[in-house]
């Protein structure tokens, strides 16, 4: 039953431009003066005309297209594989042999066409006919196909058998020689379109396409209207000059060249080559003493610092001295909200509000009134990105303000001095009996637990200025209360 609906399926064959080109060549080959000379093939008592030798085909292609012998042979071979020419003496061997072996041209009905694939129903009819002719002797793969088709198109099976019988009877009305030639043609066609196992399927093209390449689409007003809109919007897009962006890339590459492990080698040694995992151990996330390369990278730009967990740790130390540790804490909490569980979004957002944003909060961050207004409004319906505006503000604050001072601070300089430069690795000898010590790194679950514990300890230990101030205030208040008593 046909139901017209928007077809989203992939069911079009791709463009096969080579078919038309081969067809023109085929038709030129038939010319009595410039074409290929034909011979007659004698089969038993009959003689069937229009056989050509492989050598003649190759010579004709060479002469017509002016290409090398190798190319001509390959091209001729393709003609045979696509089914335009079929071999007579070894029907299953679809290759072109540049000697006296005979070939014949395939009838145009059996030429491959882009718009139609070889149909299953036709194949079933062919197999049924072959069954009748050979009294049940089919090849193994043909038998399998027969049974498979019987199940697949079972509802058409009566028709298949009826049609096979009729076609067989109709074929009897032709001359013996023609019947033989027809048999050869059909067999060659199905060898090309339903290749036996082990043979190369030359017409295979992968997946079907979504759009029909041979469709002639009439462009309506709507189409042109949409096109104009698209181009107008494209013009309005802001673009960076290529000189500027290329300059940026060059600067970036120059800066990071020395820290790239593939381009500039890595110390102590590349673990994939020397089987020595020291490189990974030394560059672990929260290692005690980071490498010098890593610490130097923090000075390139702010995003490098904030990306590296060790860098963040160090930066946090610095910020605590400056009494702006809550900034980084807020930033980290926002990241956690953005990338954490969807189910915990609401409670996390509330916690962050209570801790950082509420007036009189324990770790109150300093953002301007407008951003605060937007954030508070957004928190009525919290989602992952509700704190984006505030987070960006704090990020820019840290970048423009604290980062510069951090790079000049003694904390950073100390870290730089402490940083280790690993020695060029020596290839470790394989121990007794060639056995290597296999060390396994700690499980990621354990690592995560350790991180969370560290964070909790941090949170408990942070003494914020507001807390201090509030403690001082309370002490004063108590003293005041105590005093009058």
């Amino acid at each position, binding site marked *: 039953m046909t139901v017209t609906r928007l077809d989203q399926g992939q069911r079009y064959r791709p463009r096969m431009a080579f078919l038309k080109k081969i067809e023109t060549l085929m038709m030129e080959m038939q010319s009595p003066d410039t074409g290929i000379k034909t011979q007659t*093939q004698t089969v038993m008592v009959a003689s069937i005309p229009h056989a050509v030798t492989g050598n003649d085909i190759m010579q004709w292609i060479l002469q017509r297209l002016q290409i090398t012998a190798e190319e001509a042979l390959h091209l001729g071979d393709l003609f045979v594989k696509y089914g335009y020419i079929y071999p007579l003496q070894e029907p299953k061997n679809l290759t072109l042999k540049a000697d006296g072996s005979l070939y014949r041209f395939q009838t145009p009905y059996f030429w491959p066409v882009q718009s139609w694939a070889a149909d299953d129903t036709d194949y079933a009819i062919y197999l049924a006919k072959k069954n009748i002719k050979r009294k049940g*002797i089919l090849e193994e793969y043909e038998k399998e196909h027969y049974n498979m088709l019987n199940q697949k198109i079972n509802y058409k099976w009566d028709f298949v058998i009826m049609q096979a019988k009729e076609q067989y009877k109709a074929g009897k009305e032709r001359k013996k020689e023609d019947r033989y*030639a027809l048999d050869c043609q059909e067999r060659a066609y199905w060898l090309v379109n339903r290749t036996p196992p082990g043979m190369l399927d030359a017409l295979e093209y992968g997946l079907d396409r979504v759009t029909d390449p041979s469709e002639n689409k009439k462009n309506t007003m709507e189409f042109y209207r949409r096109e104009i809109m698209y181009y107008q919007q494209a013009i309005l897009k802001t673009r960076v000059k290529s000189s500027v962006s290329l300059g940026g890339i060059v600067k970036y590459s120059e800066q990071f060249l020395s820290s790239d492990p593939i381009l500039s080698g890595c110390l102590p040694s590349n673990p994939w080559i020397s089987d020595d995992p020291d490189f990974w151990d030394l560059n672990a996330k929260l290692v005690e003493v980071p490498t010098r390369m890593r610490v130097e990278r923090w000075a390139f730009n702010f995003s490098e610092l904030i990306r590296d967990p060790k860098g963040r740790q160090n930066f946090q130390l610095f910020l605590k001295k400056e009494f702006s540790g809550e900034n980084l804490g807020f930033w980290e909490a926002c990241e956690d909200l953005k990338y954490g569980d969807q189910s915990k979004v609401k409670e996390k957002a509330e916690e962050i509000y209570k801790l950082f944003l509420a007036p009189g909060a324990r770790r109150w961050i300093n953002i301007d009134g407008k951003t605060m207004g937007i954030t508070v409004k957004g928190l009525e319906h919290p989602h992952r990105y509700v704190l984006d505006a505030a987070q960006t503000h704090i990020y820019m604050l840290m970048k423009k303000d604290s980062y510069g001072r951090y790079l000049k601070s003694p904390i950073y300089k100390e870290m730089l001095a402490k940083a280790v430069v690993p020695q060029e690795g020596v290839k470790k000898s394989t121990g007794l009996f060639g056995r290597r010590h296999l060390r396994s790194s700690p499980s990621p679950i354990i690592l995560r637990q350790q991180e969370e514990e560290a964070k909790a300890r941090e949170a408990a230990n942070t003494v914020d200025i507001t807390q201090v101030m509030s403690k001082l205030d309370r002490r004063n208040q108590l003293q005041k209360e105590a005093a009058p008593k």
Partner: protein
Amino acid sequence: MVKEECKALLDALNKVTACYRHMVLTIGGTSDSQNLREELKKTRQKAQELAVANRNKLTTVLKDKTVSKEDKAEFERLWVIFSTCLEILEIDMRRALELGHEFPLNVPKKHLIQTGMSGGTSGVAARAMSVQNMKYEAEHNIDVVDLKDLENEINQVGEMMYEMEMKVNVPQWTVEAKQDPGAELKSTISVGASSIGMISVEENKSFCDISKVLAGIIFTAVLIIAIVLAVCVVKLS
């Protein structure tokens, strides 16, 4: 009664479709000629008449509510056969149109493909039209003139198929075939007549025969040796 009529009509359509397929196979080959194009035209028109007759008969039966369940199943089966036949006919007609455009007969520069066919298709056409001999009466440029008609007829067939789908509600996949796989082998068609057909014998077949013969010989030899030994044993003891 109605069933037999339907079956007969369907058989006729089937026959004409098979003959049409045979004729379309020869377009563009060396047996192509004006006669072939005329035969194609006549066969096609006959096929269309039969198709219309079939459709009318089957639609009246299928719309009839008084038909029994088994009969209804049988008519649905016939309907599926009819629609498949029509699909094949349409495809063949489209191919004929394409090939007709590619291989016009009176253009001196365009040569026909040397396919090895030398005989004509008049026998096939006669079988399709159910006449003894074919009469050719068309003009000599029928190959070009006919193409327009062919296009129209393809559209007609397409419309007919669409109408059929819309009017009659027969899900194709629910029909079960009556014939088992391999049913065509049980037919009483005489196969041995075409001697040339036997020329292209599979190599497997000959190998199978040889191996069978060899096995038989070895078996009989072993049997004879066993008998001789037994006789010797009896004699000596």
